[in-house]
């Protein structure tokens, strides 16, 4: 009880703009520095371009209060505390599950809406009713990858590399292994920690298992060391990755070891269907005008843009800046025409229904990975 009272008291006393009709500020809590800087900045660009397209809600200018959580849980908590003080209408981001879970606790208590642009760990939205996400969840991404490995690649034995100190990677590896074993396959899971460079021990363990496919649920920082070492130790099996490796650091860092690397990620224009594809294309065109030389225009950018659009739409639907009104407007949002597909929160616990997930493949001709290309193979909706 004391907490709720304190939060209200703080909001009012602090010239809380939650009620008054002052400028609508939206907090942006992203990993702009540290390990996930490239993905964080790509998402920020998506939000800024979306704001260019639609810059006002309830007739006022929408302000973005940007906070860099430096890819650390305590940085994310500090940003959350700052947003509680500023009394923002809602918070967009962070992109990764670890930072998202860290920020979700204080924001839920303070009753502030949070939309994590690309956190896919199921635990994030379970923290409270104010916590939403824009992406699919890991159990779906793990299942789809496992089914692809078992059916399309006819693999019976899979080695799973898991970064054990990250919620996203830990959960995703678990879902893949569970689904793959339910399809009759056999898996072993090898752990490494963040910032590992020497994978000789893990590769030694993998050697005795002669797997048909390798599943990597980690990030590009470690992937750029692991893949070359795998190739050097004679592992030429097909490597499957997840949306964390949808980042220019992978092909550039890993070089030709990433040639033929298949990964699941957020569907872009070429996997969406019908008018969603059209919307994605003219958003991409508009994006090129604002950021012509952006290295990373990928699913994260689209997810950032849609998070902003959905937040502004909810404020407009609610017709006032009162947090509870905006909350239930968001909770029964139906079929919003987003740039990454239609978004529906009605009847969900914060995870949008029917998101499309795409399969991409890297091709890295040169040894130093300077001219890499990413082609998309096909897309699967959460419904199927």
């Amino acid at each position, binding site marked *: 009880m004391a907490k709720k009272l304190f939060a209200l008291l703080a909001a009012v006393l602090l010239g809380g703009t939650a009620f008054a009709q002052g400028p609508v500020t939206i907090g942006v809590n992203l990993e702009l520095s540290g390990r996930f800087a490239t993905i964080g900045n790509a998402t920020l660009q998506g939000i800024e371009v979306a704001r260019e397209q639609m810059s006002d809600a309830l007739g006022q200018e929408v302000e973005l209060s940007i906070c860099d959580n*430096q890819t650390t849980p*305590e940085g994310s*908590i500090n940003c959350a*505390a700052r947003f509680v003080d500023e009394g923002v209408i809602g918070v967009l981001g962070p992109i990764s599950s670890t930072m998202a879970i860290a920020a979700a606790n204080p924001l839920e208590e303070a009753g502030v809406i949070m939309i994590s642009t690309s956190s896919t760990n199921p635990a994030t939205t379970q923290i409270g009713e104010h916590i939403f996400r824009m992406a699919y969840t890991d159990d779906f991404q793990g299942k789809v990858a496992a089914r692809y490995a078992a059916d399309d690649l006819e693999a019976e034995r899979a080695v799973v590399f898991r970064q054990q100190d990250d919620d996203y990677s830990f959960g995703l590896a678990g879902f893949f292994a569970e689904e793959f074993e339910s399809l009759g396959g056999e898996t072993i899971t090898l752990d490494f920690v963040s910032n590992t460079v020497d994978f000789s021990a893990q590769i030694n363990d993998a050697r005795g298992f002669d797997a048909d496919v390798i599943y990597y649920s980690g990030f590009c920082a470690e992937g750029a060391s692991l893949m070359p070492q795998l190739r050097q130790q004679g592992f030429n099996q097909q490597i499957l990755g997840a949306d964390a490796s949808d980042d220019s650091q992978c092909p550039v860092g890993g070089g030709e070891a990433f040639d033929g690397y298949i990964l699941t990620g957020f569907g872009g224009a070429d996997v969406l269907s019908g008018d969603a594809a059209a919307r994605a294309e003219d958003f991409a065109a508009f994006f090129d005008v604002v950021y012509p030389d952006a290295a990373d225009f990928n699913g994260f950018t689209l997810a950032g843009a849609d998070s902003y659009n959905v937040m502004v739409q909810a404020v407009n639907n609610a017709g006032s800046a009162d947090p509870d009104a905006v909350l239930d407007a968001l909770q029964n949002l139906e079929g919003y025409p987003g740039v990454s597909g239609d978004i529906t929160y009605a009847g969900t616990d914060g995870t949008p229904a029917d998101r499309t997930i795409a399969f991409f493949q890297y091709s890295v001709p040169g040894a130093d990975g300077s001219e890499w290309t990413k082609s998309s193979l096909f897309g699967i909706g959460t419904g199927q």
Partner: protein
Amino acid sequence: MSDSRTRLRNVMLTLGVGAIVAVLLALVEGNGGAKLNDTLALFAIWGIAALSLNLVNGTTGILSLGHHGFMLIGGYVTSLLIVPADVRERIASQARSDMTPFTLSLSVENAFNAVGLQALTTPETLWVRFLVALLVGGFVAMIFGLIVGIPSLRLKGDYLAIVTFGFGEIIRLSASTSLFSPFTNGALGFAGVPNDFGKSIWWTFAILGLTLFVMTKIKFSSFGRALQGIREDEIAAEAMGVNLARSKVLAFAISAFFAGIAGGLWVSYLSAARLDFFLFFLTFFFLVAISVGGTGSYTGVLMGVAVVVFVQQYGDPLEKTYGLPVWFGVIGSLILIAAAGGWLYRKTRRMRPVLHPLVVVLGLIGLGTLLFAIFGQNSPALDGTFQAFGMRRILLAVLLIVIMAFRPEGIMSRAEFSWAWALRERKDQPSDEERAQDAWLSNPDLNRGSATSSEDPLPASLTAEDAPNAVPFLERGTKPDPDEPRYGEGRDWQPEQDDEEEGR
């Protein structure tokens, strides 16, 4: 003033100050922002950890670098025992989490139910369960403190520091291995630890007060004196009967206990227990606090913690992205200040040549960069912004290097705040009556005239060579015995040079 009356006065004064602090906290919690509230809570939590580290580093003189390991243990045990039931189901349902049903059932709530204290398992009595979890965390850390204390019996100095560092790192690295992950949920740790204790100023400051009470009572007790004896000269301390083994292990155990408590509060503050919350930078921050504040005094340590917490919490302007001209201006002016400082230093010390080439070169570089920043604003080299990520830690590192170079004993060195000091009751300054008597004692001849009330002059027979069985000359205690023979009546002897006061 009799001893018991001064003690009463001191207790009353301390309680008075405690009350004032409580009122201030009430004011702050009311309308201070979440940030100020967090900063105060952080100050208290890191204060507990720094005070407990100072018991080993400052009072006993052993450099211990494994403090973050004890905090980790305390933090994880507390969070394992206090994490609410829904989080436990989520962990259990999580794919392939290593936590076994048994380890997940380890919670104070289940323990209370088992023992029949159903009344204490309600949400309102969460604080009782949190207190129990905190104490259990402290005791488990204390046991690890005993284990780490054992090598301290055989090793000394920098080798011992490295061994404690080794222990700290082993604890952190093995917490995520399959051996311990059933208890620590691997590297993922626990989310959703109730944070209305770590974030509440009342809880943290109350425990800080308790820690300060225990630490000062230890330091000014016979045990504290034995520890300081070990710091001054270990061989002499052992030769005077101090049991080194027992004292050192005691210091390590108590320090580890409070480190565990601080770990528990730190986990509650961050509302999650993860391995990368307990990296070595924690011990480094406490080291900075102790070295800056003063290794020998708890008042100094608290001042040091205040400095570190201020830089950590309000240092983020340092890490914002600024335009390059701003950066160039700042660096230029810093170099200029360094050059001016060098020039002033050489001038006051009258070193030749005053304008040392290094000072001149620095001045030129500084001026050049400053002018370039001011006038070259729109030149291509200066567009674009820059963010100095990690500038707060650089500031703390530089601060520690400077302090270690110029004032290794810290700001307060050994001066401890006490009411006697505050009320100017300096016991070790001689009153002029005592000074006269002391002067007379050392040089009776010279001071014959000036010693007005010399009822206790030096014995006459002291230096008489021809007195084989000299009369027992010195009186017992300060009160002169009436029937003892009066000494110093008219015997002539050479004045001796007993130069009393040679300062350090």
